[in-house]
């Protein structure tokens, strides 16, 4: 049985949580909370912490089982299977949309004439290869790629500092705290995606008392790292573009990359950054491929590389069905907010509550 170490769990989890959030978050939270949108990012991500702790509590009670298997134990076979089916459909649909997003970003920003299927195929080949190689290889891939993503993000933010427009952050909290709640709601679905990943990966996590303590620490670390990085990304966009432009710009972080100039010798580094963003997107998409595979294995007892190919074909079909960029972005947002968010935010506490109750009642 494959095992993921606490450090690998941190980088893998952070990579999945990060995904392409830095490309999409700024616009969403600024629509919701105006120029204070940056304040909502970290709180939105930290919502994932209590959910992660619930997952670990379940893992402690039911070692070596994922939450779909635990659902079957606690809710009965058929309800468990229905939950598993929802899990498969939701993560499968979202995975396909992520593939479509990958193509859209590249086509929109630096390679407008390259056919979309090239990006789709490239992303899928990597994701299927990782899924076929197992969770340990995927974790090691994240250990290599995620630090590069972090460095590229920090560089993007730091090099954009000379472009800051005076006073764009002021006045702070002009509209009070209410808009901040709307912003937090925009971020929470991303945390819930991470929780759905935890629900599946829990089979591969160590269950010793000391190791579980380490895992809890790593969850805090991953969520705060990603939360702070994303907060900085949103903050710099509001500072450079102002709130209205931040809302309007599609993939503002790429526009920032285009504005980078160091002593008039280094400029236009957005293409370099795009290579790194590809890594981040592949981690997230691969995670969703894994999630669908775990779901299929649990619900239908189907396992093996050929099923990964089948899932890959489904992803490709979904992506090819969403070649219209604005339509795809709307669908992505709807899936995050109205499918994954409610599903994860209800399922996990309910499962945890029933497990606690059964444990307390000695059932």
């Amino acid at each position: 049985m494959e095992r993921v170490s606490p450090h690998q769990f941190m980088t893998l989890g952070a990579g999945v949580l990060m995904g392409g959030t830095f490309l999409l978050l700024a616009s969403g939270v600024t629509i919701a909370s105006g120029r204070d949108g940056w304040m909502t990012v970290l709180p939105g991500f930290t919502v994932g912490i209590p959910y992660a702790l619930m997952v670990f509590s379940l893992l402690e009670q039911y070692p070596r089982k994922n939450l779909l298997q635990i659902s079957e134990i606690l809710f009965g076979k058929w309800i468990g299977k229905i939950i598993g089916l929802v899990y498969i459909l939701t993560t499968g649909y979202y995975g396909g949309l992520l593939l479509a997003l990958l193509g859209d970003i590249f086509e929109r920003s630096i390679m407008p004439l390259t056919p979309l299927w090239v990006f789709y195929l490239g992303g899928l080949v990597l994701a299927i290869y990782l899924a076929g190689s197992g969770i340990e290889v995927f974790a090691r891939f994240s250990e290599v790629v995620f630090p590069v993503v972090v460095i590229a993000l920090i560089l993007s933010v730091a090099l954009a500092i000379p472009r800051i427009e005076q006073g764009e952050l002021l006045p702070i909290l002009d509209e009070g705290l209410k808009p901040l709640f709307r912003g937090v709601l925009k971020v929470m679905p991303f945390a819930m995606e991470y929780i759905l990943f935890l629900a599946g990966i829990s089979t591969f996590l160590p269950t010793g008392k000391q190791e579980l303590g380490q895992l809890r620490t790593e969850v805090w670390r991953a969520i705060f790292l990603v939360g702070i990085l994303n907060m900085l990304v949103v903050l710099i966009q509001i500072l450079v573009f102002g709130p209205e432009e931040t809302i309007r710009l599609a993939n503002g972080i790429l526009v920032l990359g285009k504005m980078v100039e160091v002593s008039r010798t280094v400029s236009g580094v957005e293409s370099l950054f795009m290579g790194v963003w590809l890594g981040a997107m592949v981690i997230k998409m691969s995670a969703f491929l894994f999630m669908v595979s775990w779901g299929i294995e649990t619900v239908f007892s189907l396992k093996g590389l050929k099923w990964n190919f089948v899932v890959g074909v489904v992803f490709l079909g979904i992506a090819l069905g969403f070649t219209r960029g604005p339509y795809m972005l709307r669908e992505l947002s709807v899936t995050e907010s109205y499918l994954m968010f409610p599903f994860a935010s209800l399922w996990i506490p309910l499962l945890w509550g029933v497990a606690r109750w059964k444990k307390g009642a000695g059932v």
Partner: protein
Amino acid sequence: MKSIRPPKIGLVLTLIACSLLLTGCWGKREVEQLAPLIGLGFDLGQKPGSYLITEQFVRAKQGKEGVEVQDRTFTIEASSAREAYEMISKISSRIPFMGSLRVIVIGEDVAKAGINDMLDFAQRFSEFRRTMYLVIAKGKAQSILNLKLRNGLLPAMFIKNNLETGDTISTFPLVHLGHYLTTLDTKITAPIIPVIESIKPGEEGVEYKADGKDGAEIQLQGAAVFRGDHLADFLTDEETKGYMWLENNVVQRALNTAGSGESKVNFSGQVLNSTTKYKVSDQDGIVGLQYQIKASIAVDEVMGLKEQLSETGWVDLMSEAEKSFAKVIEKECQVSIQKERELGLDFLGIGRHIEEENPRYWKTIKDHWEDQIVNFPVSVNIELTIHHSGMSSGSPTTN
């Protein structure tokens, strides 16, 4: 013989397919095939809804004295920038490349009609960068970009170079496309864009030999103020200089006190550094804005001094110079504030300053802000320090 497992065959086949199918980038363009665009001009066309779009390309060619830059400038009447691109592609042997564009020159007529439609392509198409500069042409953008300059530079290159070195005189603002869009979005501050104009011999106090062969001269001076995206008025050189002080945009400046006061001695100097801060004050319910300008100056010229001064006398003279320089700066600021009041347009961003520092008060006045600009109290306090008076403590005119 050991057989290859199916997953490995699949992987090998995938890799072969990738190497066969993914052999290069789609839309790959070699540098030699490209015509780099460096300047873009917009004027109104003769047909309704059309524009005169002037595109200035450079073509590098190996000459006798190294690489020579050739001018390839086209003007197309089209209804959109994309249409102009198509028409230029038909007559050009190279592919127009937009990523190198550094300057957009907007003609006066387009500026009056509204510039956002024309700038949409520049802010949307991914090849462009938000760091490109905007300038308004007095007259037609086409005329500016078609000039043959006496220094041999292409007009777009000249404008770019002058804008980038503009902080050595700080007399006009440097406006990127991104800055314009961000300012426009505040809906409070009126955007401002520097003005470029051609100068004939004798105009603006500039004389030069013009026999038709040597070419022309152009200069960046003043600025254009917008109401939304429509040109509202031009600022004079002095009004623009005042704007530069109040916007904390002065890096280095040449200052001259001649004609500014009653002093018989006049001074010229260079501003070494300057900082402008502002504060929204509230005294007995009367809200106002106070600017505080701090600048350091080196005196470079003393004119009209007829006697040798003692050390104490020199100290007094420099103190007098500080007051004279302060008067000059204050006058520049006041004419700028006066212009803002006359136009009823907040190009100084006073409304945004109030919003930043006193948002509660701002909410009470924001709906009538343009009416309130006229009477809104604004004061300027100047604190000058003369660091030194150059390499001499006396003047050759001393008796």
